[in-house]
């Protein structure tokens, strides 16, 4: 039987996600956020989740914010939890109902990359000598001090891309690549929402950003464009 990772329903896309899972969520700001998959995860009902994402959601109606507002998230690992509209995060965190692990953005990306690449931990100069580096193992290489950071390997990754084929080969659109690319490699179950489905072979071998080996399920979600970040000049 031919390989076909394309699923037809959100229920099929979310099947089998267990309580207590660690879930990677792609996106940077509004671009490349797998919001439809997040809403499907909220519907699916898994709880006691650990979320790994750059931001901690915005508003209350959708995405990470809604998942947290529904009480499904125990812990969030992120670099920039406070931003315009991060009201749900702040309420829950201030009430002691949501644990936060604050990670420098590049360390977050590399911990995820390492998780996908089978590297259990690595040394980085980032955050040495700071609050974030406190309590971490320090080692000196060639006269410079580094801290030990452990890889992140997750149960589930939720990813958004521009084009996907039935093998799960993915192509992102400009800034939509962001965390989606490393996250797609670092989970046991990688679920993708794609703006477009294309025939196998339409994405040339030099044009694939994430090869299908990393991807388990693809669902077609042609939602259009993310919102403009701010009003633009003429």
């Amino acid at each position, binding site marked *: 039987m031919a390989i076909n990772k394309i699923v037809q329903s959100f229920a099929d896309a979310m099947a089998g996600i267990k309580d207590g899972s660690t879930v990677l969520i792609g996106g940077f700001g509004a671009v490349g956020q797998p919001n439809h998959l997040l809403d499907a995860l909220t519907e699916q009902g898994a709880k006691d989740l650990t979320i790994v994402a750059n931001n901690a959601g915005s508003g209350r109606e959708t995405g990470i914010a809604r998942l947290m507002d529904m009480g499904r998230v125990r812990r969030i690992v992120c670099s920039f*939890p406070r931003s315009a509209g991060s009201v749900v995060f702040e309420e829950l965190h201030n009430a002691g109902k949501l644990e936060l692990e604050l990670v*420098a953005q590049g360390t977050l990306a590399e911990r995820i990359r390492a998780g996908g690449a089978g590297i259990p931990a690595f040394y980085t100069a980032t955050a040495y000598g700071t609050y974030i580096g406190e309590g971490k193992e320090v080692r000196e290489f060639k006269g410079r001090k580094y801290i030990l950071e452990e890889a992140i390997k997750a149960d589930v990754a939720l990813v958004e891309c521009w084009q996907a084929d039935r093998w799960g080969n993915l192509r992102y659109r400009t800034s939509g*690549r962001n965390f989606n*690319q490393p996250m797609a490699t670092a989970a046991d179950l990688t679920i993708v929402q794609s703006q477009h489905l294309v025939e196998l072979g339409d994405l040339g071998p030099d044009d694939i950003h994430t090869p299908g080996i990393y991807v388990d399920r693809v669902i077609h979600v042609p939602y259009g464009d993310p919102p403009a970040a701010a009003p633009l000049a003429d």
Partner: protein
Amino acid sequence: MTATATASTPTADNIKGWSRRDMAKRLAEDIPEGWYVNLGIGIPLLVSDFVPADREVVLQSENGILGMGPLQTKRTFDPWIVNAGKQNVTLKTGASIVGHADSFAMIRGGHLDLCVLGSFEVAANGDFANWTTSLKSVPAVGGAMDLAVGAKRIWLIMDHTSKDGRPKLLEACTMPLTAPGVVKRVYTNLAVIDITARGFELVSMTPEITFEALQARTGAKIHRKD
């Protein structure tokens, strides 16, 4: 002169010095052609307006853009392109896009010639504090700590004193550090100051102020260049 003595000496006058755009312009003029540069969000982004049009400087944005251009207009609108500050920006001819792991490998790997950041405080030993004023509220760190240790040089662009006149250039930072010992140069509204093995070294200053008055607004000794 000790940090505590000067830190408790608010300035009584209202010398404003250079404007933020003046500061950004001075800094931009010091960036040589061919450098790869990351500009932090806020005032540092103003620097991009003042790089001379005939000088090729390649701007990096931590979310994976190399070759970032000016902000989009209605005519160039593409919601899929954002910078680290989540503004819609353009791409220059020759630009490239990578994912977050590759972008920070570029940053951490020492490939950027320069990163320009804003800051709350900087110390004479090159320590700086720009990510949070306190750990009481939940801080957000973003990419500041990665940029601080990864770029070949860190230049800060910041006010010389706080609104109530307290020095922001200090013997030692009082706020949580972004990184120890990395800052090479500081552009303020009053002066341009290098950080060397001796500490603060004056490069230039606004004609509105004397060296003694500048020193009085600074929380550690300023050395004159030999």
